């Protein structure tokens, strides 16, 4: 997707979008390495707390629902921008950011609870792998929330319109990627014993 003043490219594709997909590919390898490290070491601790003693499935299920809902809100925000609906864009961008912040609230509660239960990043190898993996994911969500809030302000000021849909689409790609990473983490870290 591009505007009329965009010069032709060798691939016939927008370079920004192609570059961002390449970045997402590199992020896939980054999270792949963190997930594999967790999978290898999660059951290698010699001292507790162990994963089955501390992971809270009902709480994490709720935060997963929240993040999935934020992904739906994000795609509806892009749809609104593409249709030229400023009110729709503002509503759905705000909804996405709010759902992202709720997810971060769940994660902050979980981390605090784990620390009170005696699990820190230094307690055992499970704690190290868990906090590094989910912490990096949370950092990505935080960046995404800041990005969304920036887009919301720009849209409010009339600086994001139908012609700037690519800017929202790129932010959407990032947000959905954060969501698919969580889909993998929820299954591999929380549900699989």
């Amino acid at each position: 997707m591009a505007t009329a003043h965009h010069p032709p490219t060798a691939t016939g594709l927008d370079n920004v979008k192609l570059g961002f997909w390449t970045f997402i590919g590199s992020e896939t390898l980054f999270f792949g390495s963190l997930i594999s490290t967790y999978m290898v070491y999660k059951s290698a601790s010699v001292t507790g707390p162990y994963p089955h003693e501390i992971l809270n499935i009902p709480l994490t299920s709720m935060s997963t629902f929240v993040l999935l809902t934020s992904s739906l809100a994000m795609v509806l925000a892009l749809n609104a921008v593409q249709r030229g609906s400023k009110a729709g864009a503002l509503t759905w961008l705000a909804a996405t950011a709010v759902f992202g912040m709720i997810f971060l609230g769940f994660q902050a509660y979980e981390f605090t609870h784990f620390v009170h239960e005696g699990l820190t990043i230094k307690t055992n190898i499970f704690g190290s792998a868990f906090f590094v993996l989910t912490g990096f994911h949370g950092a990505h969500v935080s960046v995404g929330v800041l990005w969304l809030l920036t887009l919301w302000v720009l849209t409010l000021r009339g600086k994001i319109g139908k012609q700037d849909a690519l800017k929202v689409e790129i932010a959407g790609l990032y947000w959905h990627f954060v969501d698919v990473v969580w889909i993998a983490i929820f299954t591999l870290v929380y549900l699989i014993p």
Partner: protein
Amino acid sequence: MGVTHSEDTTAGHPKWRFYVMIGVILTVITAAEVAVFYIPALRGVLVPLLLVLSTGKFALVVMFFMHLRFDSPIFSAVFVAPLILAVFVIVGLIILFHVVPHGMGEIAY
């Protein structure tokens, strides 16, 4: 989605009802994942079942919310190639540490 200008920037993308339907399907699959986790009778097939459900969710988001289903195959290639490599790394390390006899799985920290 090329550089050709189009006034209708939603061209080739579905309508909002379609996205809501995908969202509902994702919610149902997540509910199924959690339900499967708590059903003792499914303990034997828990891991493959969860992996199938999770892969389905992953594919739905990537294909429809990230629009790979409607975009150029080049975008799919630059994402799927590292994804396959990442899956090989994860599976390879799990086999090396937890499946191979006398492998590195004895290490404890």
